[in-house]
């Protein structure tokens, strides 16, 4: 039985995540088939992505602070087919939980050797690999003593505009997951899909921890079953 989108996707309105209260639409969405335009999508040229952009640790003059890690995985569609030559964009906080962004007021140090952004195209098997440092957790003002669990942001294009997805990847065993309204907004059946697993042999011996995280996009034409 295929999972329906409602099983795994969060609702728009999730009051514990305060910013949803004024931004979530109140009216029901109108369900339509993707137009012929929306079953196609932007095609990123190979030269759009430099190979070096898959390694977030080589941007500066020396290595960034933090726990170095390798993340591997595959991008698939709901039929289990690889999504090939598709752009994956990632961004994240540094090891201290700080973004190089003017509105990030967390009193933690910037790392001059870490910009926290990267991109990669999947290969012919839908595989990707990035090298980075584990992002730090950071406080936010959604609620008293709120802290976001460590996460890496992902922006995915698939092969069709209807597949466009922006999401976040989390780390196994993080105690902050239980108190994070953004993560908890995902129905229970979907939550483990956002957590990477340790895969030590994908790491670099003596240098970097290995993690694995596969992602699944809806089929380009599939219309979810009516409820």
């Amino acid at each position: 039985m295929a999972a329906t989108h409602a099983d795994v996707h969060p609702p728009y309105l999730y009051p514990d995540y305060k910013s949803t209260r004024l931004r979530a639409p109140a009216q029901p969405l109108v369900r339509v088939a993707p137009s012929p335009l929306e079953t196609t999508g932007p095609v990123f040229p190979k030269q759009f992505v430099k190979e070096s952009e898959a390694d977030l640790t080589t941007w500066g003059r020396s290595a960034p602070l933090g726990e170095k890690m390798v993340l591997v995985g595959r991008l698939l569609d709901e039929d289990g087919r690889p999504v090939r030559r598709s752009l994956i964009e990632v961004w994240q906080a540094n090891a201290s939980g700080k973004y190089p962004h003017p509105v990030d007021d967390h009193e933690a140090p910037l790392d001059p050797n870490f910009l926290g952004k990267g991109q990669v195209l999947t290969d012919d098997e839908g595989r990707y690999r990035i090298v980075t440092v584990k992002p730090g957790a950071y406080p936010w003002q959604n609620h008293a003593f709120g802290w976001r669990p460590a996460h890496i942001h992902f922006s995915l294009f698939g092969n069709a505009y209807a597949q466009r997805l922006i999401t976040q990847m989390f780390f196994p065993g993080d105690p902050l997951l239980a108190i994070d309204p953004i993560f908890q907004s995902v129905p229970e059946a979907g939550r483990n899909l956002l957590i990477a697993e340790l895969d030590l042999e994908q790491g670099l011996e003596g240098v970097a921890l290995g993690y694995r995280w596969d992602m699944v996009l809806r089929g380009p034409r599939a219309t979810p079953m009516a409820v």
Partner: protein
Amino acid sequence: MTVPKPTPSQTVGPFFARELLWKDGGIVLFPGRGNRITLTGQVFDGNGAPIFDALFETWQADANGKSPSGDDGSRPYGYGRVSTDTEGRYAIETVMPGPFKGPGGETYAPQISVAIFARGLLKALHTRVFLAPLDVIKDDPLARAIGDPDRLRTLIAARDSKDPTIYRWDVRLRGAGEAVFIEF
């Protein structure tokens, strides 16, 4: 056979500016010519306050109604991406898309597919903005699915009376005048 479950959506958050925005990301590239237009407006929340940290993306057909394929060597054709500014304003410079046919012969009116991401949006908001008046779009598949003309009007960009290359479209995410959003 185990069917893989789709990866759940999460918010883009507030910290995407350096990561996702390109120089000239609001200028949509096409290989051919077309009538240059600008789609511009403001994005508002449920209190009518401008949303200053939204990511506004567009994907559209070319002037002949064809889906873009390929790139100019640096960026994909047909795709625009900007953030809103402190007044919630976005602007996309592009060409007027042509109408196109669906698989059942239905006609899609001139339109741009839009996705909005922001802090507080746990999933993308998808919709289509029409670049033609109500009487021209009434047989469009989305216009038919919406029915109610008052709701439909939330998706019609207004042509500027002084500069006919400018189409204005304000987007209210919630509350009075809330735009119609779609799911596929």
